[in-house]
Structures are given as C-alpha cells and as structure tokens.
C-alpha cells in the first residue's frame, strides 16, 4: 500500500478538492505549479538557506536521558521548539511565502487558532515585506492575547472571525471567503496539512524537513537511520506529517499519533477526531471530521488551542483507516502532567500541544531497546498562563 498522495490528490479515499467554483482558479494555479516551483534549484536553495540562517535549523535531535530512564526506553526529542517563533509552523510559512512570491502574489492571508501559525505567517510577511491579514476567531483573540500582540507588532492585521462558533474553523472559513473575494493577488497560507489538494501535500513536503533531519541525526547518534517509533500530536496534522513523512513506506517504523481527548473522549468536550469523527467534507477536503448525524460540523474542545480542530488532515485519516498508524488520545489532565514531567526531568517547558505527544507513555509501553522519537513541536512560553492556572503555581 502507498501512503503518499496519488496524482488526483487523494491518500487512499481521503483528500481531493471539494471547493466552490469561485476558488477553482486559485487552487488550480497552485496545483499546477507547486511541485514545479518546489523542484527549482533556486527555490530549494533559498528555502534551505532561510531554514538554516533564519529559523535555526537543523533542530537538534536530543537524547532525553532522564525521561528515557523513567520509561525504560530510548527517547529522542526532535526540538522544533527551538525554531524561530517557537514551533514547527515556521517551516511551512517560509516555504509558502517563497511559493507565493514565485506565483507573483502580493497579499497574504492566514487563519490561526492559538496564534502560532498566525505569528509564523506574520513573521515571514515582515521578512518579505508583504501585506498580511490573519483571521482569528473572536473567542481565540480573547484567549490568546500575547500572540495577537505579536502579530500586530509584526505588522499583520488581525481580523476577528465573528461567524459560527468564532474559533479556528470559523477563522478558516473567513480566510477562504477572503480568498474568494481576492482571487488574483492573494495567497492563502494554510497552517496545517488540511484544506483542498494540493495544500495537504504541499504543507507535508515543507514540514518533511523534520523527518529528513531525524534520519541523518539518528544515523550519527545510533548508527541507524530508522527509529522504532515516531510520535507526534495531531491538530490538523502538520508536525505529525513532517515527522512521519520519510518513514511512511517503511513499515518497520511504527507511527504513533496522539490526538486531544479534552475532558475525555465521550465527555462531549473532546477533539479526538479519529475516535469521534466520520468521513465527510471540511474546508474542501474529504477526511474524518467531527459532525452531527446530519452532517453539521461540530465544535471540538481541548485545553490546547492548537489541537482544537474538528478534522484531521487526509493523510492521517488514511493512516488511521489503513491501520498504518496507531492512534491514541490524551486528556487535558494527561497532557498537562506530561508537560510538567518533561519540565522537571529535562528542563524543557513544552507547548501544551506537544505535551499531548509526550503523554504517549500513559498509553503505550515501549521495550528498553526501542528508539522512540517524539516531535516536540513547540515551546511552552505561550502557554505559561495555562500551566500556572492549571497547577496553581
């Protein structure tokens, strides 16, 4: 079985481009050009130069000795938290801003939930001197004030999404509507491996630098390129897609996905899409999503704003349905405890999203000789207030 995208833009039965005709020219322009542009040597050179000098890549692959001792296995952390702007999101925004420039676009739009992708987009727009408009749910704007301030300082305009449930999915709707209204000069930088084809594939390719580095870094440290497991949290699934990418077709590498269970899968307040979702269409993509029996998209919940999305990218639906990936979900409490544990054992405060990946040990026991690589997708600075409130620090 292949786990890569086919020529029609599907991973197995998932993916495609279910978009209104108004978006067709925009998406089609991108579809026809993205692989060609990415293959240009000048593009690759500029992309890698920026990843190195601006983002600070390669991000370290860190052997977490005390965590390994605690769980009696070999744990490596892929340190995306050390990237400029504090998360993996910037790998994608650097790639897409270069794409936008080559397509002659002068205006950038994005959606954001927690504000991490919004900050990463505002950052590259400042870097390139392009206009930037970030859509953010009215409720999230209130919850994520520091990131809103960062975006504004970077010169972006933050527009509140006032429709529907006024969170990430509505911000995404508003960004898509903006694109419908500005079909010629605007590029939409989607923040995860979601949306109509070719977005999931393009975002995955930009994020695949994560697993590309893991391979040679592990070779240096362990004398082998492949770990036994790669572990990542899944919101829309971009850090996970990047972490899995170069291991997808090698079935000796176990793929583990951790979703946000919120207050418990069956609590009615959860974002565990693979467990609760059904196949359907969200934001132009056929994938698993949380919805009513009637096909209305429902509002997820997680303590982590970055995992608060009612769907997952089509690659992950395929990994789930085909059995290639092992899917677990971590509750708010499990994630918060795992985050605190990493802080105490290794001196690293993780983003709450990444804390979900670290909660893998609550769900799976590894062998002492197993090599387990966990994507530490972001740092916890943005979540400090959440941790403080939760632990009454």
């Amino acid at each position, binding site marked *: 079985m292949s786990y890569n995208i086919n020529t029609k833009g599907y991973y197995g039965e998932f993916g*495609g*481009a*279910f*978009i*209104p*005709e*108004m978006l*067709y*020219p925009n998406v089609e322009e991108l579809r026809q050009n993205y692989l060609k542009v990415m293959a240009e040597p000048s593009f690759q050179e500029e992309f890698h130069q920026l990843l190195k000098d601006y983002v600070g890549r390669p991000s370290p692959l860190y052997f977490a000795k005390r965590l390994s001792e605690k769980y009696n296995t070999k744990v490596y952390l892929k340190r995306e938290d050390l990237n400029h702007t504090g998360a993996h999101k910037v790998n994608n925004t650097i790639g897409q801003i270069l794409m936008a420039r080559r397509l002659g676009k002068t205006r950038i739009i994005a959606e954001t939930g927690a504000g991490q992708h919004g900050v990463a987009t505002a950052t590259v727009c400042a870097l390139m001197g392009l206009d930037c408009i970030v859509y953010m749910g009215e409720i999230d704007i209130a919850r994520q004030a520091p990131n809103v301030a960062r975006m504004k300082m970077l010169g972006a305009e933050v527009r509140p999404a006032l*429709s*529907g449930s006024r969170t990430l*999915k*509505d911000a995404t*709707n508003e960004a*898509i*509507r903006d694109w*419908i*209204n*500005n*079909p*010629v000069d605007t590029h939409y930088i989607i923040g995860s491996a979601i949306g109509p084809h070719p977005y999931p594939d393009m975002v995955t390719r930009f994020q695949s630098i994560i697993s590309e580095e893991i391979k040679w870094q592990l070779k240096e440290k362990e004398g082998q390129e492949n770990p036994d497991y790669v572990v990542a949290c899944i919101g829309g699934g971009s850090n996970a897609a990047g972490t899995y990418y170069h291991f997808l077709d090698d079935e000796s590498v176990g793929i583990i996905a951790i979703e946000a269970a919120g207050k418990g899968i069956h609590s009615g307040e959860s974002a565990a899409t693979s467990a609760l979702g*059904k*196949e*359907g*269409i*969200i*934001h*132009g993509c056929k994938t698993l999503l949380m*919805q009513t*029996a*009637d*096909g*209305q*998209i*429902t509002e997820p919940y997680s303590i982590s704003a970055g995992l608060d999305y009612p769907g997952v990218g089509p690659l992950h639906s395929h990994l789930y349905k085909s059995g290639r990936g092992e899917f677990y979900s971590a509750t708010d409490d499990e994630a918060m405890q795992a985050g605190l544990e990493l802080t105490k054992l290794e001196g690293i405060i993780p983003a709450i999203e990444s804390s979900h990946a670290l909660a893998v040990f609550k769900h799976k026991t590894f062998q002492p000789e197993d090599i387990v690589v966990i994507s530490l997708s972001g740092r916890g600075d943005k979540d400090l207030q959440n941790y403080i409130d939760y632990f009454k620090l």
Partner: protein
Amino acid sequence: MNRINQKLNQDKKLLSIYFTAGYPNIDDTISIIQNLEQSGVDMIEIGLPFSDPLADGPTIQASSTAALKNGMTTEKLFEQLKDIRKSVSIPLIIMGYFNPVLQYGVEAFCKKCQEIGIDGLILPDLPADVYDEEYKAIFEKYGLINVFLITPQTSEERIRYIDSISNGFIYMVSSASTTGAQSGFGEEQTNYFERISKMNLKNPQIVGFGISNNETFTQATKFTKGAIIGSAFIKYLTANGISNIDKFTKTILKK
C-alpha cells in the same frame, strides 16, 4: 420534461429567489414557498442550512446559523416539503453544501428529492469533475438537474466543460465574491455577462450574487435568461417577516 427546462423554454426573463429553510422560523418553509409562487416568482432555491457555508457572505451565514438553532435538519426539511407539490407548481431547487448530502447518502437524498418533486440541486462545493465521475448517473436516475457555478475567473475551456455536463442552466456568479457582497453592477460585470452570452452555450445562464433591486435585476438579465436573489430577500424577511412577500417581488419586477 423537468419543470426547470419547461420554465427555461418560456419566453421571459426569470426571477429566482433563494431563502434559507428554517429562517426566520422553523415552520415558515411552506408559506414562504407558496407566497413566492403567488407573487410571480419563477423558480425557488430552498437553502438547506450548513454550519460552515464557505461560499456565503454574512447575511446567508447568519440565516443558516439561526435556522440550525431553530432545529432545521435534512430530515425535517424533507418532512415539511412532502406535500409541497399539492400546492406549488414552479421549479424547486435545493441549494446546500455537499457534506449534509453525503451524510444522508447521495442516492437516498436524490431519491427523496424525486419523491417530493424537487427538480434540481445546487451544491457549490461538489466540484464538476467529481460530479461527472461519481454522481452524475445517480442524479440523472432520479431526474434531478445539477446546476454548476461559473465566475468571471472561470476559463473558457472550463466553461465549455461545465456546459457539456449540465442539462439545465448555468449559475453565473456576478463577480469574484461570496453571496451578497455587492451593491451594483459596473461595466466589468456587463462585459462579462455579454462575453458569456456570446459563447453560445447549450445551457442558458442565470446570474446570481449581488442582485437586490429592479435596477440590478434589469442589468443582470440584459444578456442572460434570468437572475437569482438571495441575501436581499433574506434581509427583507429579517425586517418584515413573511407576511408581505409579494411586496418584495413587486419591487424587483416593478409590476
């Protein structure tokens, strides 16, 4: 012959009206349809509300959110419409997004539409090529006409393709926008309407998005078969309720 095709054969400019089922009140569906027909409207688009209507502007979004809050569902709409053909004879089209149809089951949905006497569907996020490959046969089996959108950005080649797989009319979106975004037509739109009319497509064109009064209706239909009004009608319902629908139609047609 399908009621839509019969209507398109009439020698007049057609006025089609969109409303969101379940708005302003859950049980208004039937009286809105009956009143629209009596007021002289030629065709009706019944909006099946969706939580995430990507192609719609604020007015239709808000009416959809309200309709869902009022308790509108696919099942409920079908239940309300079950006897509609006893009192209404103009073409009826259901307009909605693809996910609710997919969850109901595409074939079951089409079958139900035929039983009720629905003549066509408009599903903006069901792309032409997917329809062509996967669903065309099912729609045709149940006698349903599927209507596709084109915009000023749609290439000539794609317009020809869409024309080739359509068997009713083509929904011409007046400008690059979501619904309700516009307050009048300029030269750019008129040129676009004329350009398309000169393509001699096999399907007539009906213009939608941004039509709100007699002036825009007249401009839109100069080169086309008709026009569709959505947001302006929803705004009218919001302000006036459902009692004087004929007044709205009269201002559009200036009768």
